[in-house]
Every structure is written in C-alpha cells, then in structure tokens.
C-alpha cells in the first residue's frame, strides 16, 4: 500500500489512487486537508481542467493537479505553501472576472463553492475593468432544470454526469475559449430520471432545479440525515427543513447504497409529506354509514369495539392483517406481534411495484419490502384470496398499497367486510369502505430503521413533526392492542426499545438496531452464513 505525506500527515492509500482520492478515502478532504476543487467529483471521471486543486509535490518542478496525480509510495505533498495559495488565488480571480457577482439574487448563495472559495482565496476588490461576458439567463434545459450561463464556471461536472451516470448525454460544451458554453444538443432536452443531480453537483448557481429555486434561502435550512422511501433502494438523503417543513431532498453520500445520487422521482417525493391529502384526523363510520372525523382516542376505542365484537362472535381467525412495505422494521415487528397476539393466521405485506433500472431505481416502490420479508411476512395475496373466499370478516390494513398492487380488482371487494380498519398517512380509496381510519406518520416524521433491497438496515430519523395528531404505525397498533387487552400490549411504543427487542429476537437482525447501524447502515445477517457480512462502517464522508 503506497503511503503519502500530506502537510506532514502520513496517509496510506490503495494502489493507483490520485492524491484527491487518497484524501477523500481517508476522510480528510476539506475536512482537515483543504484542497479546493471544482471539476473533480468522487463519482465522475477526472477532468483536470479547473486547475484549482494544484498542490506542490516534492520532485516535481511545477505544481501538480491533485485530481490527476497518482500517488507514488513516499510521495510528499504540500497543500499550504505560498505557491499553492497563489495558484488558487489565480484560479479564483480568473473565474470571477466574467462572473455576474449576483449572489444577492442567486439561489445558490450560501451553498456556493465559488462564493466559499472567493471568500477563502479571493481579493476584496476586482481588478478587472473590462465588461463582463454576457450570456444567456434562465435557459430552460428541460422539465426539471434551469441554467444560468453567466454563472457557469465550465467545470463540466454536469456534462460528465449525463455522459457517465444516466448515460443520456444531453449536454456538451459548445464553442471554445471564453465563448465556451454548456448547452443541450440541438433538439434535445435535459430529461432523464436523474436529471436533478446536476443541480447538486453544480458548484455554483448555474444549474438550479425548478422545484427548489427561490423557495427559501438555504441558510435557513437545516439538513437532517434521512432516507428516501420512494423505492426499495433506500437512497441516503438530507432533508432540508425549516420551520417544521421539508423543502427538499438531496442525496447524501453512501457509497454502499446510492454513491452521491438519487432519482428525480425520489427527490420530489418530499412533496408527499405536507401534501393536502394527508390525513388530518381519525375517521369513524357512524351509525348512518357516514365516515366522520373523530378524535384519535375515540377512533381507537371504536376500532377496538368492532374487533372485540368479531372476536367474541367468530374468533380472531376471521381477522386479516395487511402490513405496509413503507413501515419501518420496528412498525412491522410490532405488527407481527399484534397479529400473533390476536391469534389470526391471515396476514401478509402489500408491496407496490413499478419500473426499475440498473442504476438506483428498484421495482419495489416501498422502502422496506425486504425488511418485511426478513421478518417473515408473506405476500398479501394470501389475504386477498381469503377475503375472496369469504373467510374473512375484518381487515386491519397498514397503508393503502393493498388497493394498488393488483391483488384486489377494486376497493368494492372489501365492501362486504364487517370491519375495515386502516392505518394510513394519506387519504385513499379506503374512505369508501373503511370503518375506522387512523392517521399515521410519514417516514420523515418518525424514527426507526428500514431494510433496503440489498438487505441493508438503515437509520430513519424524525426530521419534522406532523401537523396533526398522528403516530407511527407501531404506536397505533400498540394503542389498539392495549384497547383490545392483547397480552404484551401496554399502549407504549418506545422505538429504540422495539428496535433492540427486534435485534434480540430475529437472528437476521442480530446486533442490528437503530443505535448500531451508524450512518451507512448494516447488512442483514444471512441466516445461512454464520458470520456477519460486514462490520460497522466508518463515518460517512
């Protein structure tokens, strides 16, 4: 393993790594060792054109770009010398001579690398007296992205992204010299399932998303680590929140899951959190057959009364339970306990399906289908079959996926049931047949863990509070269990305790719980393999 010394710090790295990669792998890049850079990105090919990452390498007369200099054993690098500083100052000054300096009206202000590095390496007063280059403003690149050519520093990250990640190749640099501009090829739009990543990787305010621009100044946002729940991939994200509202999702780097990317559909799924069709109250169907808003506790009481009556007359065997693949491992573990305590044998999980690709997007459109399977939950088709054959009188359903997975012809198939109890985040077709609807929390509003398609258990954090009374599915089941007098249900739901109980009871989850998965998650233990797949990961870089 080659060893290099950077500013007196000794770093070991793998063969063939560049200086920047070695620093990145060691977690030191811009986190102890400052090598500012624009064109280099850890997940894109090396461009070597911004020239900002120049460092002094012993034995080389000229400064070398850290992004394209492969580490040789014993290499000695200096990133803090006057020469290096002067080179950085030169790049920053030259990038600014044609920049519009419109930070006050630029949406990138506050998270702009040109702003940051101008602060670090720029001069107070511009020396240029020449007119600045005029270029196109507000170029509509496609359905998701707006481009400001004047702000562009031509790092070409966006071009390489489209070439290398979605491989859709919409963008290129046209013209040369100081007339160079990024554009889409004639007749093309920047339109691919991952297009909005270009706004994340654009170091300046040139590429912004139509969705987020001008919504809020970024310095008002707090980034909370979370997970995208749009599909089974479990992309790591930051939720940008302010005033208890989620303004955006942005990918958070996890090389084991999503590298630094996420899909546009997942990114825009933050809109679900504060959507107008969120359930704001519990609902109970009254004696006249009308579904009316009700207090949460009254609704729990109504649900318990209905279930108790059925258990009293026909036994618990006619009750079916459908779990949601959106629910957390802790919710599902509680669901399983609830079903077991009830004493019914009819349960399963409904998993919505959709299109997949070979990058990030998975066919299972729910975040925890793998977790449900790991907890032994079978397919909800069993439930559908038994409902059709008339053996079921009551249904407790988590979420509305059961309606959308093709297991039922339509919601009317449930109209004949004596009791339908739904735990859900949003309004759905269930309102036509449900007797009790209990509001639950969105993934952004609760703690817990989710298991992605690759069996990686990852931490979910509550980033915002729901605007109305809503509880995690597990808590609602716990309340219901207590109201039913089920053994082991005391109405409490401590997600940390549930997570640890799950880890103790399930061999696949052995040692894997909310507090042990870390920032990058841990892979489920294969029950057939006696050893752990992987030790806990280091800190997220």
């Amino acid at each position, binding site marked *: 393993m080659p060893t290099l010394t950077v500013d007196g710090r000794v770093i070991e790295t793998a063969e063939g790594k560049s200086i920047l990669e070695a620093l990145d792998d060691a977690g030191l890049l811009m986190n102890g060792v400052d090598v500012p850079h624009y064109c280099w990105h850890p997940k894109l090919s090396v461009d070597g*054109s911004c020239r900002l990452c120049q460092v002094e390498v012993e034995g080389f007369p000229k400064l070398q770009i850290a992004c394209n200099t492969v580490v040789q054993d014993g290499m000695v690098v200096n990133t803090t010398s006057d020469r290096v500083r002067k080179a950085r100052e030169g790049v920053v000054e*030259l990038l600014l001579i044609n920049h519009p300096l419109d930070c006050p009206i630029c949406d990138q202000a506050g998270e702009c690398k040109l702003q940051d590095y101008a602060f670090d390496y720029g001069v107070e007063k511009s020396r240029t*007296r020449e007119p600045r280059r005029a270029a196109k403003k507000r170029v509509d690149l496609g359905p998701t992205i707006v481009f400001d050519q004047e702000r562009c520093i*031509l790092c070409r990250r966006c071009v390489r992204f489209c070439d290398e990640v979605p491989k859709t190749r919409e963008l290129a640099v046209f013209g*040369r010299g100081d007339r160079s501009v990024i554009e889409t090829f004639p007749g093309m739009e920047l339109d691919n399932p991952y297009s909005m990543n270009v706004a994340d990787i654009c170091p300046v305010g040139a590429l912004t998303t139509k969705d987020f621009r001008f919504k809020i100044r970024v310095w008002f946002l707090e980034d909370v680590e979370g997970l995208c729940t749009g599909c089974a991939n479990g992309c790591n994200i930051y939720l940008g929140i302010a005033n208890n509202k989620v303004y955006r999702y942005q990918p958070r780097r996890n090389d084991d899951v999503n590298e630094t990317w996420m899909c546009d559909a997942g990114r825009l799924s933050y809109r679900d959190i504060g959507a107008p069709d969120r359930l704001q109250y519990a609902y109970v169907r009254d004696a006249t057959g009308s579904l009316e808003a009700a207090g949460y506790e009254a609704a729990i009481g109504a649900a318990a009364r209905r279930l108790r009556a059925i258990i009293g007359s026909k036994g618990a065997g006619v009750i079916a339970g459908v779990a949601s693949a959106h629910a957390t491992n802790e919710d599902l573990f509680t669901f399983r306990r609830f079903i077991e305590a009830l004493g019914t044998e009819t349960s399963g999980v409904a998993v919505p399906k959709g299109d997949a690709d070979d990058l990030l997007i998975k066919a299972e459109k729910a975040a925890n289908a793998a977790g449900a399977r790991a907890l032994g939950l079978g397919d909800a088709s069993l439930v559908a079959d038994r409902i059709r054959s008339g053996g079921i009188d009551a249904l407790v359903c988590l979420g509305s996926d059961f309606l959308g997975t093709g297991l039922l012809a339509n919601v009317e198939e449930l109209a004949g049931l004596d009791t339908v109890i739904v735990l859900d985040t949003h309004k759905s077709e269930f309102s036509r047949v449900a007797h009790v609807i209990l509001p639950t929390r969105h993934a952004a509003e609760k703690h817990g863990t989710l298991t992605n398609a690759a069996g990686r258990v990852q931490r979910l954090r509550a980033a915002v509070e729901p605007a109305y009374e809503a509880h995690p599915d597990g808590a609602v089941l716990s309340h219901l269990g207590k109201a039913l007098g089920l053994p082991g249900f005391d109405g409490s739901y401590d997600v940390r305790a549930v997570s640890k109980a799950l880890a103790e009871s399930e061999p696949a989850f052995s040692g894997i719980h909310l507090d042990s998965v870390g920032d990058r998650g841990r892979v489920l233990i294969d029950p057939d393999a006696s050893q752990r797949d992987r030790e806990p990961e280091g800190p997220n870089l």
Partner: protein
Amino acid sequence: MLKVPHVTSYLTEHFAEDAFGTLAGYEKKGGYAAARKALTEMAPGDVIELVKASGLQGRGGAGFNTGLKWSFMPADSDVPKYLVCNADESEPGSFKDRILLERSPHQLLEGILIAAYAVGACTTFIYIRGEYSFPADQVERAVAEAYDQGHLGPNVLGSGFRHDVVVHRGAGAYICGEETGLLESLEGKKGQPRKKPPFPAQVGAFGMPTTVNNVETFCHVPYIVNRGAEWFRGFGTEASPGTTLFGVSGHVVKPGLFELPLGTPLSEIVFEHAGGIAGGRKVKGVIPGGMSMPILPAGQLDVPMANESLRERGTMLGTGGIMVMDETTCMVRVGCVISYFFRDESCGQCTQCREGTGWLNKIMNRIERGAGQSEDLGVLLDIAAKMEGQTICAFADAAAWPVQGLLRHFRADFEEHVRLGRCPFTASFEL
C-alpha cells in the same frame, strides 16, 4: 520553378526540381535508400539509438530529443502501436512544413517509414490542417504512388515490414497542433488537449501507444540513417544539431524560407538571407520562433538561433518562424493581434487559459484604444504569470510568453499609450 536560395542544405537541396515531389524523381536522388537500409539491415533499436545519437530535436516547437521520444514507446505490445505525423502547422509565422509537404512528400514518407519501423508502428496518421489543401493533395498523391510501388502496404520495400498511412485533414483549430489535441481531433472528438498522464506513448490515438512527430522532424531522419549521426552533428551546434527551415516574414526585403544550420545568428538570417529591413527603416523587434515565442528587441539579434542560446534571452526557437517588425510597428498593436489570436484559439478547458486569454486581449485592446491605465501593465504581467505553467497543455504558456516579451522589451510603447491616451503610431488603426 521554385527559387531556392543557395545555402548549405539537404532537406531542400532538390526543391527547385518539381520531379523531386514524385516517387521516381525522389528515388533518382537517392530516395528510399535510407528506408531500405533501416528496414533490411538495422534492428529497430539500432535506429532509435542512431537517432538519439544524432541529437535530432523535434522541429514542432518544443525541441525534445526525437530518439528519446521514440524510446518511450513500449517495445513489446499486445496492441497496435501508432505513429502520427503532425502536419497541423498552425503557428502564425511558421510555413516550413507546408513547403516540405508540397515539394517533398516522399521525403516525409521515407522518414515516416523509418520511424514506424523503429517504434514498431503498424499505421501512421498524417494529420494535415484543413487549410493545407494543396499540400494534402500532394501527400495523398505520394501515398498512392508509394502503395502502388510497394513502398507502403503489407511488404514495405520487400522487407516484410507492414505499414499503412492514413491521411487525415483537420478542420482548422490551432489547438489541434498540440499533440493530444490532435489525437482527440483525429478520433473525431472536439480538439482539446488531454491531461497527462497518461502520455501518448502509453495511451495515444484510439487508446494505443502512439508517437507524434512533426513533419520536418521526420524529414531529417532519412539523412541521418544514410549519412550517420556524426555527419548530422556536423551542422548546427553541439546541443542543437542539424539544419532547420527558418521562415522569415514581416518587414524584410526577401521574405521566405531558408534552410540553415541551427545556431545561425538571427541577425544573419534577417539582414543577409532575408535581405534586411525593407524601405531603409530600422528594425524594432523580431519574434524568433512563431507567434507564441517572446519577442527580441533590435539590440539582441546577434543571438544564435538554437534553443540553448535563445533561452538565455528569455525566448525559444519554437517552429523557427521569424517575424520581423520595423520601427513603425506599434508593439501594443502587436499585443492586440497576438492576444486576440490566443483568445480566439484557446480550447477553453482550463480556467487560466479560457479566462486569462480573454482578459489579456481586452486589456491590450483598451490600452491601444487609449483607455489604458498605468496599473494595467502590472495586471497584464500578473495574468500572464497566473497562466504560465498551470494548465493541461502549453497553450496558456504560449499565450502568456508574448505578453511578457512585449512588456519586457517594449514597455515604453505601452507607457506612451497610457500617457497620451491614444496610440502614438500612425500605422496603427482603430480597433
């Protein structure tokens, strides 16, 4: 009939005869004997050693030792190796390769064959700038003749060595003369230099090990093989052996191309071979090696035209394109023209070059317009310093050096513009 000045020469010795451009005419003067000798009597390594020993420097501008460059090619390779002839002669002031292509395409092909044999290349791509339409026609005709006679193809000169030559016409960008920009363009991509490493000898044209040499460089090779390294070292200086083709343009009586030994004093070239300054005026400055090389003032023309001595004067031989300017020349105007060229031709990849070339040009224009300020001179030098040595290729250096040269030797011209608020030279015109 081309007029060739009577000087000690070998490359251009027979240029007066049109027939020298044909295969028969070339062979009549001993052509292809060197290739026969190399391909049948010498081992490839011996050819490389011979060229190394001759001290032949690349004639494309950088002056790197040719034999050494060849030795960077992997000796054993599982993949094809390529040779590229850089005929994208685009340096303003340089027109030597054009004449070599027009008058002696077979001399070039023979040099290519020997080099290809030495480095083990299966194919040579001759990349000719798009504007060189007539030269390209001549090369294409010569290549066809050579294939016809078995001088190219599966069994070159009956030696069993296989070699193919592909003539590729460029589309007219200066940067495609930079060897990796050329390779990108050759591959059908936008002509932008590649970051190094990897170097072309490892990953070159189409991903294969590749050596790129200038037209004139190839043309010297047959003579070295025929007559030996010692003979070659009989011309020029110890560090810079051989002759070269100096192209003289500007305010001289007899502009033209002169084959002279390296180390010939610049003053001799300007005042004897090119006949001195036209109209009886005085010389003001001379650019010694194509537009990217720093200018020399009248007092320094005694310098021998070889890299080792030119470097001492802060300039370089470049491509040997000598541009002579007399006392009526406005050096700020020269700065405008030069900086415009580099601004226009910068590929735009690297920050310093893309932004710096434009900024230099804008300041030069402003000074020439009469709106310059005294701080501008310092800013010009500072921008040049920020561009120099910091980019993927040497283009930014080529854009910075002329500015440094002009301000080093003709600062007074710039100061006068600033002081007067206008251009003091009548010959200058409004921009």
